[in-house]
């Protein structure tokens, strides 16, 4: 009991301190603090082994990479001022900007860049979060303080995109780790970076990250003095905090609260087409795979997959589950990537048509049984329908799918499973039938395309469908080394078509990106087709006078 009282006191003191921080804005000497609320939290601030979006939001503010994605979607220099590549595309030479310093005041040099890139190449296990971006890299060198030379073993089509994810770290912070495990366990609570904000504290228990503006940031210091990120366990509490002005911005407004937030006074709610999608995964692990998959063999029948696709009312899912804040999905490359350049617009989605679904199954020889479940040669169309338990949308999706499938003579039993257990049950054990899950793709299609490749279906890999198609795998390698944009687009369109027709995934929807801020307090947020972009916005925002 005693310790609990003590804890309450600490929380009270912290709350008082925090609210004291929040009283800013009265006098001209008061620091300007922008308070951001979110429902997530970074898993770690170590860029070598961070996997959550929240971590990367912080990295974008505290670290810098050679390149960065501009608001327009184009890749521009960040640490790099300019760059060229040799005619064969194998040698890339970057010239760095002047006056770059680390947060501790030390000068930043080209050898820091070379060290980071070489460290990732040397230890892909330890740097698991970013090692796929250095595929085809041979080495990085720093002939002088301002020049970085990267050599490749084959030309790469998306070099600028890849480099924008490689945050250059302060070598003394990372040199000490000798094994991949040591590096992975490093929490890096106060990172030393070169970005516009430096993390002054990261309190995991209170869920508060405090970041001070770095006055000597090489691209010009931010106009605000401090950003705080506050994690809310409950999104309703977060929405109320925005309403009364305890926080100034929410960067992940839940769909179910967006209409309410739009009605708030002095709050601007911004909705933009997003790239996060959810899909129905159909177990596509080949029967001869080792370990052998445990699934209903009827799922291997393309006609069954077609019938399943006919039995899904995607528009209804968007209406009811996403509260109409999204659009129906078809391919694994959402229309937002690269401004729509990579999304294959020629794919005709399978329409929702229950009688068609029944007809397809009837024709394929699946006879309706007395209990309303179709059957062929003793194989009943009866599937497990699982979903991760940490998502509030998926139980609704599972119920709706089950109701439609029933009309087509397919019986599914929804089950909510702990996400870690679900992953280990799927990859590479292949012990599932149908699973509802989702992805947040990178701006470049490379990552989301890699999810469907055969060699990702290993423990710790990204593939969960077990889709194995040598032709697709080859196309994936081809698009990586195709420098010509139009040629790469043609390959990527073909890949989307293959996944769409083979249906390891049935993409259900693309979610809108929902953010909101106090328009009476701050101005200057950049609203682009990508939504309110955090990194660039934070450099621009200023208090309303």
């Amino acid at each position, binding site marked *: 009991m005693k310790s609990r009282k003590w804890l309450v006191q600490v929380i009270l003191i912290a709350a008082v301190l925090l609210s004291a921080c929040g009283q800013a804005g009265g006098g001209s000497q008061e620091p300007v603090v922008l308070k951001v609320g979110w429902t997530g939290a970074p898993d770690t601030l170590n860029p070598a082994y961070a996997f959550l979006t929240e971590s990367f939001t912080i990295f974008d503010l505290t670290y810098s990479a050679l390149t960065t994605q501009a608001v327009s979607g184009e890749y521009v220099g960040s640490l790099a001022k300019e760059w060229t590549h040799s005619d064969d595309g194998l040698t890339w030479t970057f010239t760095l900007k002047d006056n770059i310093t680390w947060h501790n005041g030390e000068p930043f040099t080209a050898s820091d860049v070379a060290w980071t890139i070489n460290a990732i190449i040397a230890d892909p296990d330890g740097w698991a979060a970013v090692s796929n971006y250095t595929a085809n890299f041979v080495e990085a060198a720093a002939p002088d303080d301002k020049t970085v030379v990267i050599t490749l073993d084959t030309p790469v089509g998306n070099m600028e995109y890849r480099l924008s994810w490689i945050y250059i770290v302060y070598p003394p912070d990372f040199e000490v780790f000798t094994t991949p495990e040591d590096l992975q366990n490093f929490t890096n609570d106060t990172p030393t970076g070169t970005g516009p904000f430096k993390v002054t504290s990261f309190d995991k228990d209170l869920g508060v990250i405090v970041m001070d503006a770095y006055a000597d940031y090489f691209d010009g210091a931010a106009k605000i003095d401090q950003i705080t990120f506050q994690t809310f366990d*409950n*999104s*309703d509490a977060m*929405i*109320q905090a925005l309403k009364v002005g305890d926080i100034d911005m929410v960067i992940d407004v*839940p769909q*179910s*609260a967006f*209409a*309410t*937030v739009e009605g708030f006074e002095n709050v601007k709610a911004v909705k933009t087409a997003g790239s996060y999608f959810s899909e129905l995964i159909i177990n596509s692990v080949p029967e001869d795979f080792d370990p052998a998959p445990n699934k209903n063999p009827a799922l291997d029948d393309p006609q069954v997959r077609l019938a399943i696709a006919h039995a899904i009312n995607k528009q*209804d899912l968007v*209406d*009811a*589950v996403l*509260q109409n804040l999204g659009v129906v999905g078809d391919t694994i490359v959402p229309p937002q990537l690269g401004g729509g350049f990579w999304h294959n617009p020629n794919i005709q989605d399978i329409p929702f048509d229950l009688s068609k679904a029944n007809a397809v199954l009837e024709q394929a020889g699946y006879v309706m049984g007395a209990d309303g479940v179709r059957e062929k040669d003793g194989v009943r169309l009866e599937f497990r329908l699982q979903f991760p*338990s940490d998502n*509030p949308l998926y*139980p*609704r999706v*599972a*119920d*709706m799918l*089950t*109701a439609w499938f029933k009309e087509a003579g397919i019986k599914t039993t*929804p*089950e*909510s499973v*702990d996400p*870690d*257990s679900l992953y280990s*049950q799927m990859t590479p054990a292949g012990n599932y039938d149908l699973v509802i899950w989702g992805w947040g793709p990178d701006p470049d299609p490379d990552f989301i395309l890699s999810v469907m490749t055969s060699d990702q279906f290993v423990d710790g890999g990204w593939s969960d469908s077990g889709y194995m198609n040598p032709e697709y795998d080859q196309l994936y390698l081809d698009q990586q080394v195709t420098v010509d944009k139009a040629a790469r687009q043609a390959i990527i369109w073909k890949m989307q078509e293959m996944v769409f027709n083979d249906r390891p995934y049935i993409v259900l929807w693309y979610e809108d990106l929902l953010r909101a801020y106090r328009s009476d307090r701050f101005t200057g947020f950049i609203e682009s087709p990508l939504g309110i972009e955090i990194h660039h916005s934070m450099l621009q925002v200023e208090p309303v006078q």
Partner: protein
Amino acid sequence: MNPRWLLLKRNLLDFWKTFRRNRMGLAGAFLVLTAILAAVFAPLLTPYTPTETMRDAEGRALTFAPPSVHAPLGTDDAGRDVWTQLVYGARISLTVGFLAGFIAMFIGSLFGITAGYFGGWVDNLLMRLTDVLLVIPDLPLILVLVATVRQLELKVSPLVILILVIGLLYWTSTARLIRSQVLTIKERQYVYRARAIGAGNWHIVRKHILPQIMPLIVANTVLILSTAILIESGLAFLGLGDPTQPSWGTMLNFAFDRNAVSNGAWWFYLPPGLAIIWATLGCVLLGNVLEEMLNPRLASHHLEGEQSIVTQP
């Protein structure tokens, strides 16, 4: 007619006469019975199924719609009728509550009688075990247990885990209560007499102890039910229930996760909350009244009814 039946009938009638005059008890019985009836006759009480989405004229899902003629308690985040969810939810909430309550009652009575009757090291062992469970804070323990068991990937429904965990942890107060009662009963004259004429342990427990503590067990069970329903709701609210078989707690969990408060959709979170109060209040009222009426400390012992047979040869 069998005299034993007559006796039972007389006892029940006596009981009903007393009970009828107790307003609290009647209210409790009413609350509990209506909840059970709603659960049993759920399909008759609503024209919809719990997973059915309500639609407007254009076929679009009606989410967070306020109460209307079609949906008396409005619709939830997925456009389903809240009233339908409520009556079907009663099935899950009450089933989990009752099964867990009965498991707890059974274990508690078994441990209580064994410890109280046999005494000595058996008593010591069982009571220390009870003490250990009593001093561990229940809710954190249950949370950790449920979460851990779910990690094991057993092929059972989360509801079964809930029932077992609640049932296997909430027997301690029953065990202590029963034990203390058994301790006083076993020292009574008629127990000594029975033993003197050669009655075995089993006979004594069955014929002389169990009938004496049965009313206590019944009253205690009703009280445990309310705890079990509350704990189930709490766990389901924290997301440890089965989202595919919604109980009242799961409804609250969805209301919370899906921002019913921000949406002003009071019809989504108020009904399940009130339903939980309805059922638990019913159990508490009924249990308290039963305990008062049946407590053997306040009533005369069972041999009194047969006294006439003894004195009139």
